[in-house]
């Protein structure tokens, strides 16, 4: 989006003006992202001014504080990538330990969850894959399925145990001839949500293209017709109502990640 704006602006204005305008446009976009939250972020940043005086750094320039925190968050992404065990398994639990009812969680109310037409639904594949044919739901249901009872950990701190079934995502990626040396897999969803993950997590044996919950077709509130279920990542990294899967080397961020949540988001 930013690039489109930049291009159109460059066409209209001279190069020197356009940089400044692009900067302003970027600020506008950032401002629109959850404005009340961001304002609070800055406001609370200011309360740290007293501490900053002790250390001698200028913390009053909030943009630079945010930049610094963003950089450290990027550093934490790299550390987590390094800590990640590609075969280390998340604990699995007996079905008796499942959390009932399993909580609904999204950036909207449960009633606003998208209603996807299962008959018309087609999963799209984009980017670095040999076979980019679209997938109907019956075709996905026909694939060999597994199920696992694992803990979903939310970034807020709560956790819940659930049973998801579906196709191991690594198997699916191999089947469509995805470039497994690509850096990212990114997702676009029916509820406007988007996120992206590292290839190592995509290939983790417990990462599932989940089609069922607790033995039944994935209910709308948990992401019908399909979600990506990763017990090695926090809840917000698990996209629901997936429409497009793209294998790419381009960093595409994510809905919450672009607002400041850590991109790797591993557990």
């Amino acid at each position, binding site marked *: 989006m930013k690039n489109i704006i930049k291009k159109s602006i460059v066409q209209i204005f001279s190069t020197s003006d356009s940089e400044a305008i692009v900067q302003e446009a970027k600020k506008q976009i950032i401002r629109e992202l959850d404005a009340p*939250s*961001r*304002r*609070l*972020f*800055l*406001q*609370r*940043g200011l*309360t*740290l001014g007293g*501490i900053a005086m*002790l*250390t001698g750094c200028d913390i009053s320039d909030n943009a630079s504080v945010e930049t*610094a*925190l*963003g950089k*450290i*968050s990027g550093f*934490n992404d790299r550390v*987590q990538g390094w*800590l*990640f*065990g590609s075969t*280390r*398994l*998340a*604990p699995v639990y007996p079905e008796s330990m499942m959390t009932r009812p399993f909580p609904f969680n999204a950036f909207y109310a449960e009633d606003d969850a998208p209603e996807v037409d299962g008959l018309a639904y087609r999963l799209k594949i984009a980017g670095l894959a040999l076979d980019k044919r679209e997938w109907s739901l019956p075709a996905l249901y026909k694939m060999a399925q597994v199920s696992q009872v694992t*803990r979903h*950990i*939310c*970034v*807020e*701190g*709560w*956790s819940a145990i659930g049973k998801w079934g579906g196709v191991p995502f690594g198997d699916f990626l191999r089947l469509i001839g995805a470039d497994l040396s690509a850096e990212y897999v990114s997702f676009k969803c029916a509820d406007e949500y988007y996120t992206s993950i590292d290839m190592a997590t995509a290939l983790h044996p417990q990462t599932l293209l989940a089609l069922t919950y607790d033995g039944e077709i994935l209910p709308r509130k948990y992401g019908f017709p399909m979600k990506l279920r990763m*017990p*090695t990542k926090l809840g917000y990294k698990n996209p629901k109502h997936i429409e497009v899967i793209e294998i790419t080397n381009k960093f595409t961020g994510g809905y*919450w990640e672009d*607002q*400041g*949540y*850590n991109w790797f988001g*591993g*557990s």
Partner: protein
Amino acid sequence: MTIHTELPQVAGQKPATVHPLWLRLTHWLNALAVLIMVTSGWQIYNASPLFDFDFPRSITLGGWLGGAIQWHFAGMWLFGFNGLFYLLMNIFTGRMKQKFWPLTPRGIFNDLRAALRGKLQHNDLRHYNMVQRAAYVFVMFDGIVLVLSGLVVWKSVQFPLLRELMGGFDTARYVHFLAMASLVGFVVLHLVMVALVPKTLIAMIRGR
């Protein structure tokens, strides 16, 4: 030409150093790290409280959950590495043994009784009484528990042994919370003691 110091010291004798420079540096960096970690941690706690209360927003850092997590995950490097440096320096310079040893339950009891009667002296800042030793050793241990339980909350899948030691993900959150509460309790007591014996603050800044 001789330069005279303003302090009336015995001729040719420098005032004894109470705290070496590395100790003062790690102390103040730790104070900053604790302030960042505790205030941002309270904001994270508020997102999903463990108990029937939450922390007033005005004393939390980060503004919203995402901001608090950014502060928390930036501050943890300072807290962790500064703490590790402090512990290693204490061990390798022999300060650990010299300052905190011996430490006996009987000694703690005696000094505590003396303190409560107002009879415990703190004239020589280089010497820690048994209560101080116990408090400082406890807070070192508490810091280690904070880091380890924090690692489990952050990466419960990647640290399976630690997770089991902490009793699982959910229990690790309680351990992390209680260790935080203990640390805050220590800080409050620590600040009261500094207020009662202000020269300890001077020594922690100037070294003497």
